[in-house]
């Protein structure tokens, strides 16, 4: 069956109002996310996989919250996007001093799954996501 195509603006709408873990502001307000940082490859007929590449820009290069923000983005998309989408999340190139280490953790499915079984961490993520449906 053919499903709807989803574009980068729709994905941006899903994530723009996620709250930053440290400040009472959204990721959009902090310019951590932008629709131009999102690349979508749609294959609704499933002849190939559908894919999202989502990049985000931590506010400071040594931001200790980078993995937490990345995790919140991942959970939001996991819960909102059709299951056919494979999602890769990265920090914008040059925007973080431990770019490779952060990217590797965020894209390790097993590490993400184990982190989300940690009830404390999940609670913090849920807190960031509580505002997410405001969509700007």
């Amino acid at each position, binding site marked *: 069956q053919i499903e709807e195509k989803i574009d980068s603006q729709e994905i941006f709408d899903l994530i723009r109002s996620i709250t930053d873990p440290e400040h009472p502001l959204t990721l959009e307000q902090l310019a951590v996310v932008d629709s131009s940082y999102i690349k979508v490859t749609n294959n609704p007929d*499933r002849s190939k*996989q559908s894919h999202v590449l989502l990049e985000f820009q931590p506010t400071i290069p040594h931001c200790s919250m980078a993995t937490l923000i990345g995790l919140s983005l991942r959970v939001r998309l996991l819960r909102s996007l059709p*299951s*056919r989408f*494979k999602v890769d999340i990265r920090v914008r190139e040059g925007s973080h001093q431990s770019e490779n280490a952060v990217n*590797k953790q965020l*894209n*390790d*499915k*097993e*590490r993400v*799954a*184990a982190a989300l*079984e940690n009830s404390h961490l999940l609670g913090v993520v849920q807190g960031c996501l509580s505002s997410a449906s405001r969509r700007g």
Partner: protein
Amino acid sequence: MAMVQEAPKPKLHLLAELQGHSDRAWHLAWNPCLPILASCSTDKDVRLHSYSFPSSSSSSSSSPSNDPSTSANSTPVFNLREVIPTGHKRTVRQVAWSPSGKTLATASFDSTVGIWERIEDIDANTVPISSPGSYQNGFQGSLKSSSLAANSNAAKRDDEPEWDCIGTLEGHESECKSVAFSHTGSVLASCSRDKSVWIWEVQPDAEFECLSVLMEHSQDVKVVAWHPKDEILASASYDDAIKLYIDDPSDDWFCFSTLTGHTSTVWSLSFSPCGNFLASASDDRTVRLWRRLSAEECAERNMQVEGKMPGRKGEKWVCVSVLKSWHSRTIYSVSWGFDASEREGNLGRIATAGGDGKICVFEISRDPDVTKLAPITKLAAQIESAHGVSDVNCVSWAPARLSDNPEDENGENSIEELDDEGHPLNRSRLKGSLAGDHDMCDLLASAGDDGTIKVWVLPTSKYAAESSSN
């Protein structure tokens, strides 16, 4: 204007689909002696499925046919045997059987390893089977005749659990990722995000003693795997490296070799049945094949051996092949199994699977040119969207045969002799065992994020023709 059409690649044939896990299925393992397939999941259960090769003749089910002409081509049938709610507090990430088939180990994100045995074995209630040899009663040992013996295809007679937890191995500081028994069953290895590999001695009365804690990796250890013939352990890690360990009897277990080359996390390891090769699968979307060079082969090439000690000449493992461009996302699993067909230089078959939802099967052969270390790899079949849109987390070949003399844990019963190709030296042992004329090694099982377990065969398998599905 001529368009170049790629010849369509043969597709794997689906034999069975086993649903039931309510969340991602991470791993599965075929019992080496009994017709049981175990799977585990984020849902914290282990599911056991029994399988059999029912006769396709019209004789009554109470007298199962041993006549090869009727039962040999019948497709295996899988039935749910038991759901074990493991009691682990988090995801069950891997399951592993002991070589005797009597013990199951579960590795969990709750940082522990569970050890399970059949309740009747725990009670040491031994009743020898009176009619060995028929394929449904083809295994001996301490089994009550009322259970597995009667009809391995049926669900258990009652709703009572068959398996019980006899112990928990504690010590890891964070999620346990993998567990595996050595080929003799005398030791067990576990590994964790805490970067360590633990080696445990399997003692009588369900005692497990920690022999060694190896902190060689710099990151999360994803998998441990034992050599099929020697007591060599391999581990692979988020640090992109593979490490090999042996025991120095006068001292301790130690890492004698580090295999580098992958450019990202190594997720899975599988030794070839002959034991001369190791396959590794990585987030870098490649599979690497590593070959064991003997001390003599090292000398010929002016290479230094590793792992040399009294009684051991040493060896060196080198990367001889990189299989790339077959998978477009992380490869989560690789399995190297027997190939019963008669082909030149047969080294078995490798199955791979990953985040692109694809399963590939390659035939591996020795290069007739003996100066070439790399084996020949040829794609035999593949299937895309094996689990729909879901990632495939594990693939595993069924054992070539189910041992009809389960080894005791100390390996004192005879271990079947295998030649260099991994084929049994005494081929007549295949008859009369549970597998009989069944091409067990044709069966490939997969576990996916959709929570299902699927069983596949190559389109050239006799089961592909017989099966009415797909």
